């Protein structure tokens, strides 16, 4: 039976909230309607779900959910709230006779004094709950939430503005968010092995949710580095392959590879299927259609050099053949050249189309320059059979990065891309709303991202010497 549920959200990563809800709903196979007026910038939201179990599933898996309540009422004043609550009597009157209970009054952007909390609780006395008040382990917890506007940065007296909230919500606690504690568990600072490119825990978890990771799925990270996304993806049950052009990033300095040590710390060692050192543009995969998802944070060229095999300056004549035997023991290290970001991104989407199973997802971060970004930047990455599912911004001011989720919406087999590294001539299908002419000449904001970053994102200024990271 469809019911309304009150969601209490974490106030971070607003742009990631709806995509995460949709992904987790899709993972569990239930429909989720997000109303047009749903505001991801607010800490509370009311959603209708067909079954209570769906609300619980969301609470258990979404990193951005703090708690889910059965929704009773809302209002811009307590008068309005109590009127609506009376009308919802059928939902809460079953607990009247002898259910132990507790009332909790919470303020968002405001501290509610104990005195006022008591007043608020008193105002609910018409509910006439006869059971025992149990503050420790009640059978039901009633939650009342006053949402205040943000007044940080202003000076105010204690308890000033009390009662002057934007809206108040009321409901019965169904389930506390079970996934937020994972943020602490995967904290990079406490990890056995990490580097300066390691992705922060909360984002790694959101990325894993975007891949729909679950037991039995095969996921691949082609720029695995120190493995940040592998741990969270494996935590949710998937088996993970990783590759990187730089074996040292996967290995670290100890005898046992760093990624294996960190995976062991998290209890997911056996789910890291294998790690391989290779250049994704010269990859050894025998065939396509292998993976349920590809998850990655490609090198932007800022902290980690984005490179591929080859020479920056082409040598005259053909290469002479196998490398000469070396006088010492050191292994042969092939030359590398820069891998420009917009070429890398387009190649990544085309490679994903080849390597993913039908219905599989590509989840990756695309850095962008705030002043220059347009939706067309993402459209030009797409190719036949690949559709955009989500695009969530993590805003750093002059630049940002967007978590892009793309789904392979075809069961046709496609060959791997040629990795020409000439972005202007890659034959992409125009995205919706883009004219052919625009497609051919559009220069996305993330083109030459590395150079822009070191110029401080100012146009026409002298290149700034990169600060030590």
């Amino acid at each position, binding site marked *: 039976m469809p019911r309304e549920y009150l969601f209490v959200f974490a106030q971070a990563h607003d742009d990631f909230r709806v995509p995460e809800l949709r992904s987790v709903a899709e993972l569990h196979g239930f429909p989720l309607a997000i109303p047009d007026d749903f505001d991801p910038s607010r800490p509370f939201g009311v959603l209708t779900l067909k079954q209570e179990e769906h609300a619980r599933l969301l609470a258990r898996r979404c990193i951005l959910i703090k708690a889910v309540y059965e929704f009773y009422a809302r209002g811009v004043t307590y008068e309005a709230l109590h009127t609506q609550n009376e009308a919802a009597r059928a939902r809460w009157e079953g607990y009247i006779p002898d259910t132990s209970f507790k009332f909790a009054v919470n303020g968002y952007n405001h501290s509610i004094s104990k005195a006022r909390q008591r007043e608020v609780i008193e105002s609910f006395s018409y509910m006439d709950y006869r059971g025992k008040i149990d503050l420790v382990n009640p059978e039901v917890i009633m939650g009342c939430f006053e949402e205040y506007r943000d007044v940080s940065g202003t000076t105010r007296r204690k308890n000033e503005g009390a009662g002057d909230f934007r809206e108040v919500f009321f409901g019965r606690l169904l389930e506390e968010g079970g996934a937020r504690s994972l943020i602490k568990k995967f904290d990079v600072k406490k990890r056995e092995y990490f580097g300066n490119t390691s992705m922060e825990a909360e984002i790694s978890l959101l990325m894993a949710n975007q891949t729909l990771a679950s037991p039995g799925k095969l996921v691949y990270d082609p720029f695995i580095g120190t493995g940040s996304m592998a741990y969270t993806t494996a935590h949710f049950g998937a088996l993970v392959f990783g590759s990187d052009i730089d074996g040292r990033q996967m290995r670290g300095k100890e005898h046992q590879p760093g990624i294996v040590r960190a995976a062991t710390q998290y209890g997911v060692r056996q789910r890291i299927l294998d790690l391989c050192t290779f250049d994704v543009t010269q990859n050894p995969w025998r065939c396509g259609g292998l993976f349920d998802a590809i998850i990655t944070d490609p090198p932007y060229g800022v902290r980690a050099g984005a490179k591929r*095999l080859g020479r920056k300056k082409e040598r005259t004549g053909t290469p002479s053949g196998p490398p000469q035997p070396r006088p010492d023991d050191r292994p042969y290290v092939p030359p590398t050249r820069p891998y420009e970001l917009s070429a890398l991104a387009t190649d990544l989407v085309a490679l994903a189309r080849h390597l993913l199973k039908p219905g599989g997802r590509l989840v990756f971060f695309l850095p962008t320059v705030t002043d220059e970004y347009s939706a067309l930047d993402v459209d030009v990455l797409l190719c036949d059979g690949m559709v955009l599912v989500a695009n969530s911004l993590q805003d750093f001011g002059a630049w940002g990065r967007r978590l892009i989720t793309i789904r392979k919406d075809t069961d046709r087999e496609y060959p791997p891309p040629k990795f020409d590294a000439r972005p202007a001539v890659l034959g992409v299908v125009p995205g919706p709303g883009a004219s052919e002419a625009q497609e051919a000449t559009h220069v996305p904001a993330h083109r030459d991202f590395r150079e822009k970053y070191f110029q401080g994102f100012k146009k026409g200024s002298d290149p700034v010497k990169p600060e030590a990271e």
Partner: protein
Amino acid sequence: MVRLITHNLLACHAKGCTANNFPLQLTDVKLALRDAEFNPDFLRGFLPRIEWPALVQAARQIGDESLPLEQPEMLDDEFLKALHHVLLEIHVEEGAMTCPNCKHVYPISNGIPNMLLAEHEIG
């Protein structure tokens, strides 16, 4: 690592190496055996992607004869358990994989193979 499931998916992609580049021949191997979670649904789903003769050859190359030469019609539990063991529980920790065509040697060290190509081998 390197597990045989991975080995079954790797071919030599050196320039010009387009035939007889799979499977890579395993030599000088040092093995480790580690338990892995048994997931029959995963195995059934993955089976269509496996190159069966290459898998059996690789397993025998490193001393495991538990898999039949022909992929059986019946995917019963006993078969799936044997398949599970060979695909996921045998790790080639040291050794090399060599392309039967161009003879490029991909060394495996600490369970991670180096599959970088040399300058003359890239397009």
